[in-house]
């Protein structure tokens, strides 16, 4: 069995100033994005890594490109942890 580095955690943020509530992300990844009220988008910033393909599809489908995914491969910073 080959050893693989653990998959990077999936993280995302939506620029809600750019967002115009087209809802394409809700169709692409309905367990991550949803509307609360008629026009207000809510979403999970840290969905399960297994949802990466859906989330990438959602980011690609956004008409105003408001969705940013994590690109860092460094470990997350911790209090008193190794700092590099």
């Amino acid at each position: 069995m080959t050893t693989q580095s653990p998959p990077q955690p999936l993280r995302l943020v939506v620029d809600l100033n750019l967002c115009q509530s087209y809802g394409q992300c809700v169709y692409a990844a309905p367990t991550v994005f949803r509307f609360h009220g008629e026009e207000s988008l809510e979403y999970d910033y840290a969905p399960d890594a297994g949802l990466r393909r859906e989330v990438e599809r959602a980011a690609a489908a956004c008409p105003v490109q408001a969705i940013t995914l994590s690109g860092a491969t460094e470990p997350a910073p911790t209090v008193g942890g190794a700092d590099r």
Partner: protein
Amino acid sequence: MTASGAAGLRSGRIVVVGASLAGLRAAEALRDEAFAGELTLIGEEPHEPYDRPPLSKAVLSGRLSCDHIVLPRVRNIDAHWLLGTPATGLDVPARRVELADGRSVAYDRLLIATGTRARPWPVRAGGGLDGVHVLRTREDAERLRGALVAGPSRVLVIGAGFTGGEVASVCRELGLAVTVTQRSGAPLTSALGGVIGRAAADWYREAGVDLRTDTTVQALEGDPSGRLRRAVLSDGTVVDAEVAVVATGALANTEWLAGSGLAADQRGVVSDGGCRAVTTDGRRAEDVFVAGDVARWPHPHYFGRLLRLDHWDNAVAQARTAAHNLVHGPGDQRVHRPLPAFWSHQFGRYLKSIGVPALADQVVVTQGALDQRRFVAAYGLKGRLVGAVAVDSPRVLDGYAALIEARAPFPPMLGATDGPAHLDPVDAELPGRAAGSASDHDPGTPSALASAASAHR
């Protein structure tokens, strides 16, 4: 700038104080700008950077836990992180940041991004009672969420700004009785004025909120065990409540800069248009920059007035401008001049703003109507368009933004098919504009999305 000097700006030690949205995005932008030196991020909170806008909405309502609002790190930054480590002092001549744990960190260039905190309720008026909350951090949100889940008989929200409205809205979603007090005549007046504020008052009342305008809280009172029991209001009435949420604005986190010589106080750290900190005697501080909620700078589009914005996109954009200017010479400096923008979600409505409505002298509804679910209002100052607000109309503001950038006349000539036949501007009723007003509201500091929104919203 000599070639060697330009290269020098890409090396050395940059310290960023503040590890929330602005600090993180600045650090990433520094690496994008090819900064190859030593990078240190110092953060007071014991968490990796997280997003604050959901705290007063999805987190408080229980739809999202605080583990699920972590901000994505968009690239590797190869930084030293000092989290849970408040900065307590700054020595500008010696180029050192003092930390609460007694250490100090040396820098060649410094970025201040320490943000704001919620204005606390005075202890002499009951601020120390169990049950009195503010909402700015993860811990604040978790504590308040716990208090709401416990099923209090009534929640008192002090202040009907953006945070207060969002908290009251969530309380009603949870089926809790809510009283909101507001010093002025309507919600949101310091940011959006009395005309739009009165429309917002209808949202509160339709949702079943007991809204008390022109009313302040004189004291919060507790039982012998120190638990909040009631509030005494300025009109003499008493409201029984076990939970109070103080939503009366934000204070800049600048205490650590006392004695540093920087022009810094509760209103923010003054910087120039290029994000360079200014000293108390009006000079540029050497190699010290400011970004995010804590920055107070002369916005060139708004007549050079000092603005401090608790806005999410301002934190991101100002971080990028500061990062650029940190690593480029005098010949390649950028001016921070984006149109301010923010959003809020309350009482089932999605409100978006562009420009600075708080500066306006007049307002006019340009699309829809105030008593309809969707409407757009344009704000003018001295016959020029300076801002616009859209309720449940998220796709219209780009056009207004272009008009504001172009300093288009007010009232704007739009010809919107859903607009009134004739535009009839009225006084925007912004409290800061009243002649001789002793209001504590600073018209140069729109409190939009104060904090949780905010934060950085």
